[in-house]
């Protein structure tokens, strides 16, 4: 038998067997593929638009829009530009997403904690809520609230009257609108002073506790002071706020603030749908904290509420925040279903009407996508910062 003089493993493998070479080659191929697809799409679109006589660029943003929008947070009428329609849509998207995130978080946390209640009825009601809202398609829920609930309300003349100051009808909910008169600044100042006092008090309370051990109840004081000081300012200056109360005039209401039914339906659906997911996230976060943690804290003599605040919640948040972030992102993106019931969000007014009228598909789609990308990244960054601050102190 002859022995092979070559060593068993030569210094370098053949290039096509070297994992580093392989990974570089595959990456180059992948990038080339993406670039080719991108170029083809771009080239196609540009030549299509040229052949149909559509100019490219963002000049259209200065042209007159010529269409009305049923709800706007900023001054708008049809003589204004497409740039303004973009802003109106953007504001409406931000409004419904922001309110939706706030409300879904509150409802989700309450239901999630209720799900763990030792009260049988409370726990079962929470469970039923979660199962119903989580398992029905969101679009169906939007239609349900829009057509079956809000659409079924009576017309303005037979509106549901809440104490002659607020009205609910199929045109929406009309509430009194505060009108600030000179002197209202005293109230604003009161609020600022209250907030500043609470911050100073919290810092002082922390220092004093470190020094003397005595615990100062900052929270109850904040609860009194924050509404209390503006109210005091209101009383001292003789009430510098008046209310623009809505009244029925002709076929609709005059004055007040109107929340259109499109907003109400979309907000209800987004809130209740997302809250059912958040509730499950909160429940599993709390359950994930080992029972031994609570027992150890109780055994040290800590009262139940401090156990929750100092031991359970900080550990549960670590588990809750990452999936909570993705629910916030989902809610924001799902708000584009607004188009189904005609709520004038960004997709509806900009990618819908504006695109139809101008044909500037590439620019409009790119701008809209950039907006959602920016909002999503902003939410992610904020939540990651929060996560780092409160939760990830281990190791």
């Amino acid at each position, binding site marked *: 038998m002859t022995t092979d003089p070559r060593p068993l493993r030569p210094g370098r493998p053949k290039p096509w067997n070297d994992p580093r070479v392989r990974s570089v080659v595959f990456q180059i191929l992948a990038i080339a593929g993406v670039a080719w697809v991108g170029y083809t799409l771009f080239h196609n679109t540009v030549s299509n638009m040229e052949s149909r006589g559509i100019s490219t660029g963002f000049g259209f943003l200065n042209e007159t829009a010529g269409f009305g929008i049923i709800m706007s947070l900023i001054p708008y009428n049809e003589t204004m530009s497409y740039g303004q329609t973009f802003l109106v849509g953007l504001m409406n998207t931000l409004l419904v997403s922001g309110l939706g995130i706030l409300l879904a978080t509150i409802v989700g946390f309450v239901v999630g904690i209720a799900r763990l209640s030792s009260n049988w009825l409370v726990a079962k009601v929470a469970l039923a809520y979660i199962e119903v809202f989580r398992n029905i398609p969101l679009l169906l829920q939007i239609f349900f609230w829009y057509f079956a609930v809000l659409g079924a309300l009576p017309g303005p003349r037979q509106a549901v009257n809440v104490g002659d100051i607020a009205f609910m009808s199929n045109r929406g909910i009309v509430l009194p609108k505060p009108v600030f008169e000179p002197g209202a600044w005293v109230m604003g100042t009161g609020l600022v002073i209250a907030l500043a006092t609470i911050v100073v008090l919290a810092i002082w309370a922390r220092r004093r*506790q*470190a*020094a*003397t*051990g*005595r*615990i100062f109840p900052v929270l109850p004081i904040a609860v009194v002071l924050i509404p209390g000081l503006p109210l005091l300012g209101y009383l001292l200056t003789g009430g510098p706020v008046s209310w623009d109360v809505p009244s029925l005039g002709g076929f609709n209401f005059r004055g007040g603030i109107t929340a259109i039914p499109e907003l109400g339906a979309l907000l209800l659906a987004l809130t209740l749908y997302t809250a059912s997911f958040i509730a499950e996230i909160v429940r599993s976060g709390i359950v994930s904290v*080992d029972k*031994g*943690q609570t*027992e*150890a*804290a*109780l*055994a*040290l*003599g*800590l*009262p*139940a509420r*401090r156990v929750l605040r*100092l*031991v359970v919640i*900080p*550990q549960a948040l*670590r588990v809750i925040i990452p999936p909570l972030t993705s629910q916030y992102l989902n809610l924001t993106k799902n708000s584009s279903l607004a188009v189904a019931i005609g709520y004038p969000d960004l997709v509806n007014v900009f990618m819908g009407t504006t695109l139809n009228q101008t044909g500037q598909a590439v620019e409009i789609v790119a701008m809209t996508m950039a907006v959602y990308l920016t909002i999503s990244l902003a939410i992610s960054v904020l939540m990651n910062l929060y996560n780092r601050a409160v*939760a990830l*102190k*281990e*190791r």
Partner: protein
Amino acid sequence: MQQTETGLEPESVASPVESVARDEAIIQVDDLNKWFGDFHVLKSLNLDVRKGERIVICGPSGSGKSTFIRCINHLEAHQRGRITVDGVELNEDVKNIEAIRREVGMVFQHFNLFPHLSVLENCLLAPIWVRKTPRNEAIETGMHYLERVRIPDQAHKYPGQLSGGQQQRVAIARALCMQPKIMLFDEPTSALDPEMIKEVLDVMVELAGSGMTMLCVTHEMGFAKTVADRVIFMDGGEIVETAAPGDFFTNPQQPRTREFLEQILQH
């Protein structure tokens, strides 16, 4: 800085006191009964523990040892009978329960350290939020007890970075920082690798020497022999036999005790 240990108690009292004078007892358990649903876990237990006494509880798995000591600081509620700790009778009053828990430290089988807090912060939490101790003073006490369990150098690490034996010693220090009058141990070494058992037992022996009242569920018979004033054998939710360690290991009275000791001393 004042500590609760006196250091005056002799290392081991000659013979156990079977019937302690009632007013001497720091823990009195009378006719303690507990059910989990229909299951009768604790059947009419009676026990008086003197101040400074060291008691080891042993018995087969499921005999109710954990449940018994968890009743003493009301981690489990009992349904019949009376438990009095340091003159306070346990009832459903939250203030009462919290007052007793302040005086009763507990060490668990699985340590249950707070993973989101550093070792030192684990030791500060209860003194600051329960005893309302100024932070500097709490740090001083915390470091003192971390030194006593011989890990002051780990004070700023997180529990996840420590070995099991080190974690259990932190758990002991955390309980001692409340300067309790009584310490409860529920199988403190049974989740540990063999080479770490000794470092934890050493700390416990030292604590016993300082005069702390201790109730310890453990199968470490060596520990029971050196430290215990009395050994209690539980089976099926009952106290089957109580004896001084000398008598308990050499001359058990009950057949069930003998059977248990044979099994446990075989390996």
